[in-house]
C-alpha cells in the first residue's frame, strides 16, 4: 500500500532544490553586501567630517599664533594649544577625538632676482631663504577600517598681512 502512495508523489528534484538555494544565497549575499556598504559609507563620512573640522581648526589656530607673535615662529612640528588664554604651539602631535593632528612649519626660499619685483616667486631650491615667510602645513591622520587616511592644508605665514 505504501509503495502505491509514494510512487506517484510529485516533488522537487535535487537539482531544483540546489538551484533555488543558490539563488537564495546569491540574493542574501547581495543584500548583506549592500547593508555593509551603507554602514561603511556612513562611518567614512562621519570620520572625514570630524577630521576636516580638526584640520581646519588647526590651521585657524596657527593663524592666531602668527598674528600674536610672528617673531616666535621657528621651524618644527607642532600642535596648537591655548596657554594662558592665548594660542601657542607645543612640540609634537596631538590626538583629538581619534584624529591625530600636527602642523609642520618650515622656511621657504625665493628667487634671488626677479626683475625688479618687490616679492620674488617661491622656489623649491637654489634660492635665498626668506626670513619673513614660513610655510605651514597642517595635517590630520586617522584610521578608517584599518587604513590610514591623511589630509592636509597649506598656507604661507608672512610677516606682513
Amino acid at each position: 500500500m505504501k509503495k502505491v502512495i509514494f510512487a506517484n508523489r510529485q516533488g522537487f528534484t535535487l537539482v531544483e532544490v540546489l538551484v533555488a538555494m543558490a539563488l537564495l544565497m546569491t540574493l542574501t549575499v547581495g543584500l548583506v553586501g549592500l547593508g555593509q556598504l551603507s554602514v561603511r559609507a556612513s562611518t567614512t563620512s562621519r570620520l572625514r567630517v570630524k577630521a576636516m573640522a580638526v584640520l581646519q581648526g588647526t590651521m585657524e589656530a596657527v593663524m592666531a599664533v602668527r598674528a600674536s607673535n610672528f617673531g616666535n615662529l621657528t621651524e618644527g612640528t607642532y600642535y596648537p594649544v591655548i596657554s594662558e588664554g592665548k594660542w601657542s604651539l607645543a612640540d609634537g602631535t596631538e590626538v583629538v577625538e581619534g584624529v591625530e593632528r600636527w602642523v609642520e612649519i618650515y622656511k621657504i626660499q625665493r628667487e634671488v632676482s626677479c626683475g625688479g619685483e618687490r616679492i620674488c616667486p617661491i622656489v623649491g631650491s637654489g634660492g635665498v631663504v626668506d626670513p619673513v615667510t614660513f610655510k605651514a602645513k597642517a595635517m590630520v591622520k586617522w584610521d578608517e577600517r584599518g587604513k590610514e587616511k591623511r589630509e592636509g592644508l597649506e598656507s604661507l605665514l608672512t610677516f606682513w598681512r
Partner: protein
Amino acid sequence: MRKGFTLIEVLIGLGGVVVLAVAATAFLFSILGQRDQAIAESLAAEQVESVMAMVGTVTRAAESIEVLDGGKRLETSREDECFTFLWDEIAEEIRFDRSEEIDCSPPVGASHRLTAEKISVERVNFSLVAPDDTSRTLRLEMDVEVSRPLWQTNQSFDQIFVNVVDVYMEEE
C-alpha cells in the same frame, strides 16, 4: 494516488514561510534603515558645512564680534557690512540677517533661514576663546538631529574660526 497535502504538511509549510518572511522583512528594514542613516548623516554634514562656511567667512572679515544671549546669538560688524546669526530654539533652526551700509549696526532680527527644514538644530553655542590683542577665536558648537522615515540621527559638530585683529586699521 495522493492528490494533496495533509493539514500537518500545510501548517509546517506555512510556519516555514512565516519564519522566512519575518526574517526577510526584518533584514530588509535593517538595510533600509542603514541607508536612511547614511543619507541623514550626509545631509546633516552638508548643512553644517554650509553654516560653518558662512559663519567662518563672516567671522574672519569682521572688525567687531559679539556673542550674546548666552551663546545663542552672534553679531559681527565691519565698516559697511553687519551680520546677525541666531539660534531659533522653537523652530530648531539657525537664522541670519545682514545690513549693508556705512557704519551699520547688526540687524535686530534674523529673517533668513540658514539651515534646511529637513534638519533640526538641537543646540547652538557661540563662544569666544583665547581673545588677545591680535586675534579672537570664535567657537561654534552645534548638535543636529535628522529624522528619516526609518532612522533618526544625532550628530555634534565643533569648529573654530580665527579673526585676526587688524591693528593698523584700528589705529587709523
